[in-house]
């Protein structure tokens, strides 16, 4: 009986794709990978790096194992791992991805001293009072008055925006940009339905909500 191959190498115009079988043991896989790659080493003089795309199929590899595979491939001449793909995710990873993609709705008043933090987008039905803080990995939408601190894109997303029905924040933060309220407030201004975003000069600007359609077209998730 002919043994099934655990490692299949395919050449594409972008480099190599390694299909690694997902039913054999990890040890076997490593051994065969080592063997195959050694056999294939041709002494070609050009020192051009070839990007390798690893396809794991339905196999889950921990971060350490991924590093091992990367090291193994890198040892061979002019091969470098470009990307590792797997069909499998851990529950944690899946939760975190879901959390980041989700708009979390919270109906509450964030009072002085309270902090509300969400991984993805935040839709707050209520106010943020002075001294209160809301923090989100993504965008922040407040259907009430923002009078405290809002920090959008706190994971580093500079595209994040902050929108509020009444925009009177004590401080606005997007990613690592910070903007505070002016010391002298023109009290008569309404500041209704405004949004904050980072402009081309990496400054936080507060503007009418309607402008966002052009500035952040990615906000629309509805596909038509």
């Amino acid at each position, binding site marked *: 009986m002919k043994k099934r191959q655990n490692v299949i190498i395919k050449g594409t115009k972008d480099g190599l794709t390694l299909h690694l079988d997902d039913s054999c043991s990890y040890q076997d896989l490593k051994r065969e990978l080592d063997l195959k790659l050694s056999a294939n080493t041709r002494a070609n003089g050009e020192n051009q790096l070839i990007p390798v795309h690893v396809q794991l199929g339905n196999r889950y590899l921990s971060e350490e194992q991924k590093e091992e595979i990367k090291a193994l491939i890198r040892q061979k001449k002019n091969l470098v791992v470009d990307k590792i793909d797997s069909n499998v995710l851990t529950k944690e990873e899946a939760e975190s991805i879901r959390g980041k993609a989700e708009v979390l709705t919270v109906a509450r008043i964030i009072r*002085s*001293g309270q902090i509300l933090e969400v991984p993805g987008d935040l839709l707050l039905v209520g106010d943020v*009072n*002075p*001294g209160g803080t809301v923090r989100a990995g993504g965008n922040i939408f407040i259907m009430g008055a923002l009078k405290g601190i809002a920090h959008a894109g706190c994971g580093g997303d500079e595209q994040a925006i902050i929108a509020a029905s009444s925009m009177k924040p004590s401080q606005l933060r997007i990613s690592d940009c910070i903007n505070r309220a002016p010391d002298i407030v023109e009290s008569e201004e309404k500041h209704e339905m405004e949004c904050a975003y980072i402009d081309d000069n990496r400054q936080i600007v507060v503007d009418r909500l309607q402008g966002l359609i052009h500035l952040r077209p990615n906000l629309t998730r509805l596909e038509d």
Partner: protein
Amino acid sequence: MGEAIVITSGKGGVGKTTTSANLGTALALQGKKVCLVDTDIGLRNLDVVMGLENRIIYDLVDVVEGRCKIHQALVKDKRFEDLLYLLPAAQTTDKSAVTPEQMKKLIEQLKQDYDYIVIDCPAGIEQGYKNAVAGADKAIVVTTPEVSAVRDADRIIGLLEKEENIEPPKLIINRIRNHLMKNGDMLDVDEITTHLSIDLIGIVADDDEVIKASNHGEPIALNPNSKASVAYRNIARRILGESIPLQSLEDSGKGMFFKIKKFFGVR
């Protein structure tokens, strides 16, 4: 089985003790059996405001530590026939002398015999506050129309909302100075209530009589002619479930006129 109401504010000096004394008095005037509990251990003064300082023999810490029976420590207010009592705080130790569990047990015990337990909370959000809140069923937050007091009230409301055994807190706005509010130099009642978004249970005007009365050890609620007294009595009746409109700070016509003036930007 009575109910325990904690009077709190976060910030000091907004009138928690005065409010406690007067609400207790006003509830007793309505014929309810009331026990005032001072939880400001180390800095007691509810007894002074009530004029009962000289009669203290045992205090709250003595009860908790078992040095006396609870009824021995209660100071009876002679102005009322068996309706108003005070459990004074200790003056010699500090707030850590009592734990929230002990307070809870104590309040439970008092609830058997009294219609209302009014708990005077110390300023701050530390141990003293935790003790005061431990046994309470209801909470009243006192604030003044000042930004700092409102900020602290907001913080306290946030903490109270986390307590599972306490109903949503009610708000008293104390020390309202009408001329300042009228000029827009002070936060107005609507502004404060929308900001804190809890139910308003009463407003009390700033009244010199309150200070005079406290200094004489007589709660203002005993004097029917003062504006503040009426305000406290109204609050007591609202606690009892009556629905009474808010006292107008002056003739309502003027208030309306002021609103119109403000609308047109006339000063």
